């Protein structure tokens, strides 16, 4: 096998395992004596449980336990005054109901079918209380979140907007959107004695899961083993330890046998978070040459009555464009709903939708090309923090994207380009997401046959983390990729951060880079060569020659203070070409072209895959996804895959990605900035703007569905 260097296209190192069924996910460990847990959801939206009739369920064949707040074993982390209190919903700790679908019981049986059958026999009596799920009619209950992080932001005097020669003031909304990864959330847990527990669980951070479970059960962290070697998608929904995971551990403790708890697809809509329903007001004031005078961005998001959820939905308006005057305000409305959780491109995807649509609207008022408008307000340093960018190549993104999408064909006047019956439009949406580097550890071990194992307790929720790490190691060590095994998803491995915020390649990749570099130096030292030698190492001869059974090295890696003097972001511009049928309102996204400045790209093939996946997610955000609650009952009316629409193959045509691929000189030794989030941010506004360009219909409330197109056309007359 040939040697690879950072930046090449490499196929997934675990691809074969995944397509042959050799990859075992958390629900695929058939442990001996395994019992199965099924949750029973509340059918009321607020109140207290008066009684639970579980006799029929308990007497049903195979049932081993019906766990409710009446009999649940005490969870130390749920108690008042706990040393490390568990945040969020304390399942089965009391009789309170905060949202519809909140679990009231866990039925555990010898088979999944027995548990499912018995769960249907549970009957509860409730004391119903009044509730609020209707976001729009409770907007006045919006509050500024606790802590200083979300206080109002002001730069200059944003009231100058009112005197601006050209201005736009519009309101944009997006509904709650569910992560819904293919793999259901599942936890398998078993105890060894009273204070040691092992979990196979769907997790984006095995160390974070380890800490949460240890805190909940008040046992030493080292006594908690978390395994999450393969994850079938998560998009943020496995960033935290959820109450049902604690419940599975609780059940295993109670029954003294392994318990597997799998959420149903319907429960995935209520128990593992979502991108919250958000209404945003944008104000843009500009001179007639397009230069911005002021930006105002106010956002109100849904949160839960039992736990506060916040995200950075207004921040993008502070730094993406050069405007001397900016005001942002962020509020949340606590409702009787499950708590949201970060979803791919959290905050910025929401904010970019509003800002980038408003900018598009402004471009038509100014009769200015949308890219020219963005260039007019291009900023070579971060206007929010007054720092230089660590790197920014967004202009290159604009240039390449315009060429690849055929921007010169874009009609300056909306609704003026046709292809047969279809209206044709082009749009652009830009995005940015903070580039981070966290502290991470990695270990390398050389075996006598010349192969190496590299370990780090990170996760791979789908982007191909193992592949990227293997490429970095292969480049530095000069070893073919098939001689390298990267191990992750195991809390006993060297400590690494949770996979989130697009930071894994930056954090863990740096640890792999550093440990491999140090390992080479160590070997040069052992073989009597200068440390900075570039001589190829004869790996398979090394250990026999040194007469060692193995050789290993661990290293912690983190950024230095230089990074504090820079503002670090990944940037993107998504270009879209959309067809709209003027009679039916049906739409076809003919092409999405993503252009990205994410620093150095480690593995082009898997990175491009990630960009395509993010674009499909953005397409869903723009055109299909909407969780609907019937506010009379507080219940979701479309909590299933037939009625909650994610894009299907027929919706997805040509999607490509271009990377500027220029290493960031500041953030980390490889120069990577991260692409997981940026792959989605900017897609929804690009599509909304393309649909406007095609039809002359501006739709500010997502998702953009055929009925809204026709409604808009009627208004056009």
């Amino acid at each position, binding site marked *: 096998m040939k040697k690879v260097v950072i930046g090449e296209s490499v196929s997934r190192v675990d691809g074969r395992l995944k397509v042959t069924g050799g990859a075992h996910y958390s629900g695929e460990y058939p442990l001996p004596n395994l019992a199965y847990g099924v949750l029973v959801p509340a059918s009321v939206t607020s109140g207290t449980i008066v009684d639970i009739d579980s006799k029929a369920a308990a007497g049903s064949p195979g049932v081993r336990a019906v766990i409710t707040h009446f009999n649940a074993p005490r969870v130390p982390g749920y108690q008042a005054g706990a040393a490390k209190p568990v945040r969020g919903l304390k399942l089965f700790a009391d009789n309170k109901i905060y949202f519809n679908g909140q679990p009231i019981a866990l039925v555990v049986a010898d088979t999944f079918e027995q548990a499912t059958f018995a769960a249907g026999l549970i009957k509860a009596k409730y004391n119903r209380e009044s509730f609020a799920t209707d976001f729009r009619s409770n907007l006045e209950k919006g509050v500024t979140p606790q802590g200083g992080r979300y206080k109002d932001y002001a730069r200059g005097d944003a009231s100058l907007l009112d005197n601006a020669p050209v201005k736009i003031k519009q309101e944009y909304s997006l509904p709650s959107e569910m992560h819904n990864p293919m793999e259901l959330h599942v936890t398998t847990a078993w105890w060894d004695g009273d204070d040691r527990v092992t979990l196979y669980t769907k997790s984006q951070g095995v160390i974070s899961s380890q800490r949460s479970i240890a805190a909940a059960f008040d046992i030493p962290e080292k006594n908690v083993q978390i395994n999450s070697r393969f994850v079938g998608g998560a998009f943020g929904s496995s960033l935290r330890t959820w109450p049902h995971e604690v419940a599975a551990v609780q059940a295993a403790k109670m029954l003294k046998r392994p318990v597997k708890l799998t959420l149903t697809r319907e429960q995935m809509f209520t128990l593992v978070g979502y991108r919250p329903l958000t209404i945003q007001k944008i104000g843009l004031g500009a001179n007639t040459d397009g230069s911005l005078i002021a930006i105002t961005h106010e956002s109100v998001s849904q949160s839960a009555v039992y736990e506060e959820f916040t995200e950075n939905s207004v921040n993008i308006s502070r730094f993406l464009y050069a405007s001397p005057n900016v005001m942002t305000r962020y509020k949340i409305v606590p409702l009787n709903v499950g708590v949201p959780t970060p979803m791919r491109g959290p905050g910025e995807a929401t904010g970019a939708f509003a800002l980038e649509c408003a900018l598009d609207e402004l471009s038509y008022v100014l009769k200015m090309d949308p890219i020219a408008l963005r260039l007019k307000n291009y900023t070579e340093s971060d206007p929010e923090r007054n720092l230089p960018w660590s790197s920014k190549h967004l202009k290159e993104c604009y240039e390449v994207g315009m060429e690849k999408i055929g921007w010169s064909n874009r009609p300056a006047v909306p609704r003026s380009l046709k292809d047969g019956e279809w209206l044709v439009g082009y749009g652009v949406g830009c995005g940015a997401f903070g580039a981070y580097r966290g502290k991470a550890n990695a270990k390398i071990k050389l075996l006598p046959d010349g192969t190496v194992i590299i370990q780090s307790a990170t996760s791979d929720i789908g982007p191909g983390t193992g592949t990227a790490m293997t490429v970095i190691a292969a480049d530095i060590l000069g070893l073919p990729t098939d001689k390298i095994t990267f191990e992750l998803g195991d809390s006993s491995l060297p400590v690494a951060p949770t996979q989130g915020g697009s930071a894994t390649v930056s954090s863990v990749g740096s640890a792999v880079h550093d440990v491999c570099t140090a390992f080479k130096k160590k070997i040069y030292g052992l073989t009597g060569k200068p440390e900075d030698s570039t001589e190829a190492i004869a790996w398979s001869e090394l250990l026999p020659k040194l007469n060692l059974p193995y050789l290993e090295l661990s290293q912690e890696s983190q950024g230095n203070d230089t990074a504090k003097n820079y503002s670090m972001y990944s940037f993107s511009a998504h270009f879209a070409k959309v067809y709209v049928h003027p*009679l039916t309102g049906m739409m076809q996204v003919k092409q999405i072209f993503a252009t990205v400045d994410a620093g150095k790209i480690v593995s082009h093939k898997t990175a491009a895959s990630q960009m395509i996946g993010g674009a499909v997610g953005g397409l869903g955000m723009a055109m299909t996804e909407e969780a609907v609650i*019937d506010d009379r009952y507080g219940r979701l009316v479309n909590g299933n895959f037939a009625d909650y629409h994610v894009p299907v193959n027929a919706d997805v045509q040509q999607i490509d990605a271009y990377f500027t691929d220029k290493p960031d000189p500041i953030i980390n030794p490889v120069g990577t900035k991260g692409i997981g989030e940026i792959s989605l941010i900017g897609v929804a506004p690009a599509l909304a703007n393309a649909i406007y360009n095609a039809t002359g219909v501006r739709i500010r409330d997502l998702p953009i569905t*055929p009925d809204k197109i026709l409604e808009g056309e*009627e208004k056009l007359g």
Partner: protein
Amino acid sequence: MNQFEYIRTTDSKAAIKAMTKTGEAQFLAGGTNLVDLMKMRIVVPDRLIDINPLPLRDIEKTLTGLRIGALASNSEVAEHPLVKKNYPLLSLAINAGASAQLRNMATTGGNMMQRTRCPYFFDVTLPCNKRSPGSGCSALEGYNRMHAIFGASTACIAVNPSDMSVGMATLDAVVHVSGPKGDRSMKFTDFHRLPGNEPQKDNNLLPGELIIAVDLPASRYPQNVAYVKVRDRNSYAFALISVAAALDIRDGIIHTASLGMGGVAHKPWRLTAAEAFLAGKKPVDENFRKAAAISMEGAKAYVLNKFKLTMAPNAIRAALQQAAAKA
């Protein structure tokens, strides 16, 4: 899912007999709808009668038309050479529905029997007259975006979700059934019913009756046909509005027209007034526009489905344009 008795039978008479014994019974064919409903405890039968071994799978020529066995799968029908040649509208309608995997399992008779997708029918904790007669209709003042604009009642505003049935109704198919009191036939358009005060009844089958076959009459529309399905994504979504259009154009004049609409009523909705209007007219957009307007007489929308009053005539026009354009 509840506990139930399972019977597999190779003989129609035995199947019908098993259906009439005491307790709630259901025929099981492809199971693509029934099994979901059982899992959600919307349907809780005491007995399932698996009719898959019955000899009802054939698609064969009749003296003038085509007979489609009740167990012929949706895929088999849609891809059958005689269907594609003589009844292309039916192929288009079937392939507009569900997914390839579902069409492989779903049968002709089963498709006719599929229940509504009204979200309140699917939520056993909420009122629904179709699922639980007398409990009320949650959709009337609820999430009624997908609901009826024709033929609804205050008891139920649900729509029939089938695409195949819109095609069958438009092509003047005839349904053959067999029951405890013998065999009988009815027009496909008489198979499904409007909700009235008994929305729990989707169709006019009598207790114990089994669908045997659907007959298509002699082909009148081998060419100028279209099936326009307006939906929230480009595949695997139920219709907001669907329109089946079939034109017999001779010497530049519409000799006859057949039009059906889905997503608008408790049954496939034939547009007979528009058909009468179009007969003898030129196939031009002005006439299509008028036909569409005529079709909307008597339409009534609810809070969230008012868009259908625009989308439906637009889709009728689009379907007529597409049908007329086919050379």
